[in-house]
Structure formats: C-alpha cells, structure tokens
C-alpha cells in the first residue's frame, strides 16, 4: 500500500470539507473493495476520509411500507433487521448472501452502491425496488444513478447518505455466484408492487446493472415463472469471461429470474 492520509469524519459536512482540501481523496466506508485495491497498489488516494463514524448515516427506519436505510448500514445489519424483514424480506436475504461474514460486517449499502461493481448485488435491488438514492446534495432515482460499470451519477465530493424505497408486495433476489469470487455471475431481483413489475439484472451485463423490459412486461401480465419462458435475453449485451460466455450468462439470467419469481411467490 502507498502512503495515504487518514481522516475520521465526524459529520457529512466535515467529510465534504475534508475532501475539498485533499489532492486526490477518497471516501471510505467499509473499505471492502477500496482497501484490498490499495493493498495491491492499484489505487493510491492521497487521503482516505472515513465515513464509518458519521451517526446520521446509520440505521434502518420502516414506516408502513416506506423504508429508509442509512448509507453507513452494514450488510449484516440489513440482514438482521427484524422490522425491515417484515416489510421487505428480499433485501434482507440479499444482504445475508453478500461476500462472507467479514465483508457483511464491514461493508455498507452506501459503499456498495457508490462503487457500482458490475457484479455487486445491491445495485439490482435498488433498480428493482425503484429506490431513491439520497445524497448530501440531492435525491437520484436508481434508474438514473447507475450509469455504467463502476460508474454512477455521483459527483466527486458527493456522499450517499441513505436510500429510500417503497417495499413491494412481492420481491425476491436470486443469484448464481461466480465459482471463484462468489460475486454474482448473474443476479436477478424481481419485484411487484404499486409501481408495477420491475426486473433488474446484475453480474451479467457488459455495462453493469440493467432492467429487462421484456421480462417486466411478461410478468406484469402474468406473475408466474412460466411467463418469461419465451422472453429473449440478448447475449450480445452480456459479459463473456473464463467463467462463462455470454450465451451461458443469458441462460443464467433467465433461470435466476424464474427462480426469483418462484421465491417471491
């Protein structure tokens, strides 16, 4: 790891101010991607601004079917929240299957979304739940937030403070893990609620997370796994690598979508 300057931010405002003073600073939360990358000398931020001690970014609030999750909430906390599980069990289950216990107890929802790893799980949830990404500057629709692999609508000094969404009537996430890394090779989150049917795919797309309109339409007219049997998953838009080519991933997208619909009931 190259030398870096560490700052513990006391508030969002403090964090933004510190970022303003740094040459090439980075916000860090759980650090489950950034720290290993720095250890491999593949990233060399001049300053690390730690958001883990900003209390206003923590916690889960559920009012009826309105859910707010603080950006600094760990995957383990999302998985363990009883009130969230009552309102939206699918996101609890998703969080419980991210990485390993170490990752789940350190990594945060805000960090995951801000990094937008094309194989991360949360981006699919945000898209499929029609979530709003709340920052210190504005509120962004999930559909507009994820702009490509490791790319988001966030500005350099902008901090995600929370995410909010309306819990759907039905929802589930099904993923096929990469055999080596256990990130998603294809992860599909389906939801059915007031805002209709949403189907979001992570891990498979060559440009990161995406919604699949054809499957959404098919499920909107018939909420049953058989409804998507004839849907076309265009392999041209999907990744090929040593773990599987795009035709295999196209298959996985459909299989995971079916399994998610079945799990959602």
């Amino acid at each position, binding site marked *: *790891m*190259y*030398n870096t300057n560490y700052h513990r931010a006391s508030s969002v405002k403090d964090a933004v101010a510190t970022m303003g003073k740094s040459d090439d600073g980075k916000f860090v939360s759980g650090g489950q991607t950034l720290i290993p990358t720095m250890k*491999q*000398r593949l990233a060399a931020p001049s300053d690390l601004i730690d958001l883990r001690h900003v209390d206003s970014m923590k916690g889960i609030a559920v009012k009826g079917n309105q859910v707010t999750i603080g950006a600094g909430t760990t995957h383990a906390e999302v998985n363990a929240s009883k009130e969230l599980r009552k309102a939206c069990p699918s996101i609890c289950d998703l969080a419980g299957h991210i990485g390993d216990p170490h990752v789940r107890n350190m990594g945060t929802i805000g960090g995951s979304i801000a990094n937008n790893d094309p194989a991360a799980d949360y981006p699919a949830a945000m898209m499929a739940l029609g979530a709003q990404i709340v920052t210190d500057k504005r509120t962004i629709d999930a559909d507009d937030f994820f702009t490509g692999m490791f790319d988001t609508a966030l500005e350099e000094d902008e901090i995600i403070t929370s995410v909010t969404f309306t819990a759907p009537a039905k929802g589930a996430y099904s993923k*096929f893990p990469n*055999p*080596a*890394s256990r990130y998603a090779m294809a992860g599909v989150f389906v939801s059915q609620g007031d805002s209709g049917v949403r189907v979001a795919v992570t891990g498979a797309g060559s440009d990161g997370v995406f919604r699949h309109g054809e499957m959404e339409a098919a499920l909107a007219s018939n909420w049953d796994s058989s409804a998507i049997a004839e849907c076309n998953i265009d392999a041209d838009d999907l990744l090929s690598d*040593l*773990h*599987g*080519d795009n035709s*295999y991933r196209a*298959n*996985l997208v459909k*299989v995971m979508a079916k399994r998610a619909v079945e799990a959602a009931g």
Partner: protein
Amino acid sequence: MSEGIGARVLRKEDKRFITGNGKYTDDVTNHGQCYAAFVRSPHAHANVKSIDKSTAEKMMGVEGVFDGHQLTADGIGNIICGWAVNSKDGSPMNMGAWSALATNKVRYVGDAVAVVIADSPSNAKSAAEAVGVEYEVLSSVTNAAKALENGVEQIHPEAPNNLIFDWEIGEKDPTEVAIAGAAHVTEMTITNNRVSPNPMEPRSAVATFDASEDHYTLYTTSQNPHVARLVLSAFYQVAPEHKLRVIAPDVGGGFGAKIYIYPEEIVCLWASMKTKRSVKWTADRTEAFLTDAHGRDHVSTARMGFDANNKIVGFAVDTIANLGAYMSLFSSSVPTYLYATLLSGQYNIENIHCNVRTVYTNTTPVDAYRGAGRPEACFLIERMMETAARELGVDPAELRRANFVCEFPHQTPVIMAYDSGDFEANLEASMKASDYKGFETRRAEAASRGKLRGIGMSSYIEACGIAPSAAVGSLGAGVGLWESAEVRVNPVGTLEVLTGSHSHGQGHETTFAQLISDRFGLPSDNVQIVHGDTDKVQFGMGTYGSRSGAVGMSAIVKALDKVEAKAKKIAAHMLEADEGDIVIENGEVKVAGTDKTLGWHEVCLGAYTAHNLPEGMEPGLKEGAFYDPSNFTFPAGCYICEVEIDPDTGTVEIVQFVASDDFGTIINPMIVEGQVHGGIAQGVGQALLEEAVYDDNGQLLTGSYMDYTMPRADNLPSYTVSHETTICPGNPLGIKGCGEAGAIGSPPAVINAITNAIGNNDISMPATPSKVWAAIQATQSKQAAE
C-alpha cells in the same frame, strides 16, 4: 491408551498451529533486516534491452539494486533440472539456461529481472517500480502443442522447435499390432488441466550472511532443506555446504511446490552477501500464482484395444507435456518416470507404449504437484476404462474386474513391478459402501426433483516410497532417494529422533513418535521429533512422493533396531542375564520369564554413566541409520463418486464420495484419513474448479482468488473412507504411503460421474458449471436432431 502403531493419537503439533504459535519463515526477524522486492517481467516473452537502476538506487531506504549481469559476474550458477532424461534417439535433453535473474531475455510473466533490497517492504516495492526495464516484446506461446509447430518463436536456443525431449517407454510395434488386431478400440484425446499449487503459506526466505564467519544461514519454505543446501551449494555456487545452514521451520503446506529451489532463495542469499544485511522475501499471493511451479498440463491421445472377451490387449499413448519457460528441478521426471510407468494401472496389460514430448512454453515452470505424473496416468486410464465400458455395453466395475492384476509380484511392461495388492477387495468395498446396486433407484429419485444424477468410478494405483537409489540413478536422477534417521536416547530415557523427512502438514511429530511408543512402550510425549535444520539433522532427502512413511520411518526403524540391540546388551550385562532373554515393553527392560526388571531409564542412565558396561562397549545410546528402499511401494484403491447436476445451470454437487484405499500398514488412522480427505479435496478441485489459464499474450488470467477457484467446504461432501489392507513386503513396517492417493484417484471418479449423469462424454477438467451446461445443451440438441 496405546500410542503405538494403529492408535488415533491426536496431533502434537496442532497445539501450536491452532493457537497461532507456529513459527514460519516469515516469523523470523533479524536485527537490521532488509526486504527484497523483485522486478518482474510483465511480458511473456521479450528481449531485455536495458535496465536502468539509477532512480531506484537513490530512493528512500534502498540498500542495493541488483540485476542478472551482476549475479552472473559473481559466479552464481544457472538453475538446473536434476533429472536427466534422454530422447528416444539417445540424445540428451535440450535444457535451456535459467538465470535466477534474467539477463538478456524474459520467458514468462513473472520472470525476475532485478531485485531491490530496502529497509522496509514498502520502500523495496516502491523502488522496484522505479527500476526502468526496456523490453523488446517477442511473440509468445502458452500451448504446448502449438509451441511445437514450425515457425513458432523459439524460447531457448538450446531447444529447437521448443522440444526438450522426445521420449518413449514400452514396445511400440507389438502394441500397435495388438491394437490393430483388437475386437474393439477405445480412442480418446484427454487434457490434464494446469493447476496452481496454492499452499496456504506463500514461499518465503530469510537469508543472512555473516561476514566475520564467512557463513550463510537461510530460513526457507522447503520440503527438503538438505536438498536445497546441496543444490544451492553444488550447482548455484552460493556457498560451500559447510558454510551454509538451511532451516525449514514450520512450513504451511507444500504439495510439491516447495521441493524446488527457486530464483528468490538464491537471490536473497547472494543479496545478503552484497548488502551485508539479513534479507527477507515473502511472496504475495500474486507472486505465488505467477512463480510457484504449476502442476499437470498434459494433452494425450490414447488408444486402448480389447479382445472379444473384453480383455485389454494393448494401450498406446502419445503425450505432450508443457514444462513452462524453464526446466524446474524435477520437471523432466514427472511426465516420464512418474507418469508413463503407471500406465498399466491396476490392469494386466501385455503391451503398452507411450511417447512423451516435453515442451517449452512462455508459462510458469511446471513440476511435481501432489501426485506428480501419477494423477495424469490415472486420469487417462480410468477415463479410458469408463468410456470403454460404455462403448462395450458392460458394467464399468465388471470391465475393471475382468482386467485386474490378481497375482503378485506382477511385472508390468513399463518398468514397475507391483509387489502386493488386492484390487478386487477395494472395488468390492467401495461398491458396497456406495450401494452401487441401488444407484438406479437414486437416479430416478433425483430425476423426480429435476436433477441429473450420475455415478463414476476410479480404480487407481500409484508408485510411492520414492525410491530405490540405484534404480532412479539408472533412470537419470541426480540424487539418491534414501532417507536417514538418528535416534538419540537421553540419560533419563527420553528420546530425540532426528529425521531427514520434513513435515509441512503431515503430522510427523505425532506419527513418528508412535513408532517409539510401539517399540518401547514409552509415552509419545517422551519423544521429540527434530527435522528441518541442516545443522541438526545429518542429512535427508525430504518429503514428497508419499515417502515419509515408507522411507523416512523405515530409516527410524533401522536406527531403533540398533538402539534396541545396544540397550538389550547393556541390560543383559546389568541383570547378569542372556541378551536373547531380554524384552523391552511398557517402558521396562525385563528378563523373560523372571521377575528381574530394570526401568528403561535405568538402562539409559547406565549407558551414559558407563560405570558398568559390557567389556569394550562405547558409552552412550545414540544410533543412526540410512535406509534405501528396495522397491517402489504401490498404494491402490477404488473411489466411487456420485453427483447431482442442476441442468438449468450446470452446477455439479458431489452427493456421495466413497474411498477404499490400500496403504499397507497404517500408523495413525486419523492422520491417514486426513490425508485422504485433503487429497480428495485437491482432486475434486482439479476436476471441478481449478485451472491456471493464460490469455493469448501469455498473461495469467487466474492470478488471484477472484478468478482461480479453490475448493471450499461447501464444494465437498462428507467422505466415506475405509481401508482394505495388504502389507507392503518391501519395507520393515509394511507401509505403502497415503499422501497423494486422494489427489490421484479422485479426478476420474468425478468426471466419470458427470459424464454418466449428462450422457455426454466430452467434458474437460475443470468441469465448471458453464462447461457442464454447454455439454447438456449439446446432448439435448443431438437428441433433438435424432
């Protein structure tokens, strides 16, 4: 409770390992220690035009920056392969030069070009990044068959067409005649995938040159510290043997990769002399993937002929073996004498011929990896047998049974003379334990859940107890493969056993101590096993090839024989009895049939006080022995694997794995079962998960655990392990060896089960979900077309 042979004594070494108190090479810290960071080639094949060290030399904390020209100028010799294998025309192998730091040319990604010595790992790494190397990139080749083609870039001038040697074993003409006359011929092309060894502890070295004594000390992660010292001294000219102490302390797994002497150890020793500082290097995981010798990487075409009674009449094999960019220490022996000599398997085959071409490519050097040649042979034979059974329409178990060797000794046409075994007993035991007969019911039940269930078998044999020195010498080995032991009895009756074997996970401190418990009835706690230090242990050949039991413990037995004989002489003198009437049991030395008794400690004290010894006897009780095996040993067994496959995703789940092994005498069944469990995990890893993959430019795509799939607990079932034992007649304890069996026997069982499940025989290792899914699709479209 007995702690002798056959007792499940808990591992003595685990107390320090599981409490984090093991002492590994990287735990060694010396005063004023510096750290080495290597400048490595990012190209698979390139000429080195220039190396600019000037910036790096001025950086913070840097003690020195050195390149291969300096290394060569100081007389450090090239790295060699220690086993000479000639081509079939009699010409010697075409070994290219391997300098510990490349001078004019780099030949694989990771090839070391220069080294920085600095006061911290971070400063060393930063300065290494600042070394400017100008490369002229050459075209590269990673595939061995392609490397042999005309017009491909030459990797070493010594090896035209990148061919190292073209070797054969067995009789070609009779084999071809037999196959031509066969009623049925099974023909296959089989790839044995390249894997990375992945010991939990990465390689490490701490080298210290003491200028006042003109003496070097090297702590390193070695499976054979004496061999390391010999090679460092005799071939690499680092220091004469008496001026070089090599210590391999606790070592966290080897699997073959820590047999060899790598550039890093040589460079650390030399750099310690250059800088007059203690120099430490510990590989990070990426360096381990890039530079630890890889395993396997064979492509073979094979033909097996059967007569009308389904007896094998001939077996012809043509193998291309990829040895990587340089010839590692034992690389030549793996695809030849450790591979083709096992091609008879458990079967009575009159005619076998195998041709092997070994090839240079722009990849990490390939050498022995758990099993070393024998897994490649076993995979070939057992895939062929299973496929032949399906083609012939007979039960795979019956085809095997019809061809088993049943009488011993049995001379195969490929050097090996099997000394013992009961192959049918292992087959029967595995079939019974797996409820082989009930498989179709289980398959139907799985189908009702939408799963494809398959069963596969593998009857393996291997050659261990490596090896009779004269025999391996006649085959080209540069060393003898005996083992040594010294038993030191202390005046109070406790013992130190110094062994040339090296434990890096095998549990020698427990198992070897059981021999003393068994012999004298002493608690195993009274025994200290000493290994891994050339200043303490007289000499030793180390641990690999499942040899510590059959060879290492045989040496201890020989030394114990001498200790026992002397102790009896002393006791007979003290008790005024006949030497032949003395028995030693339960820690007491008795005159048989009388109540005359001495404590073991009294006899030992008598040996050291020397107040009352027989006339002419030397004081003390300490004996040494060298044991040279009379033959290889032949562990064998039968593994049966059952899988269930999700046809939608191609995911393979191993739902049952049954192993029946014949390891000869078993000293500690718990440790032996652990060896089988670990071996199967590695075999399953190779079959389902693991592969070192290069892209077209020779970049290693699987350079981290993000892409290299290690087996994890949830990839593996609970195994059913049992033993059908025949005693090995070749060594005093009757031991055959158990360290590699699991890794040798399991891959074909897994692949045979998968191909059985999906009805498509065209699956290569690793059988990843995407490959299995594609094979299922191919089967379905073929069925649809029919």
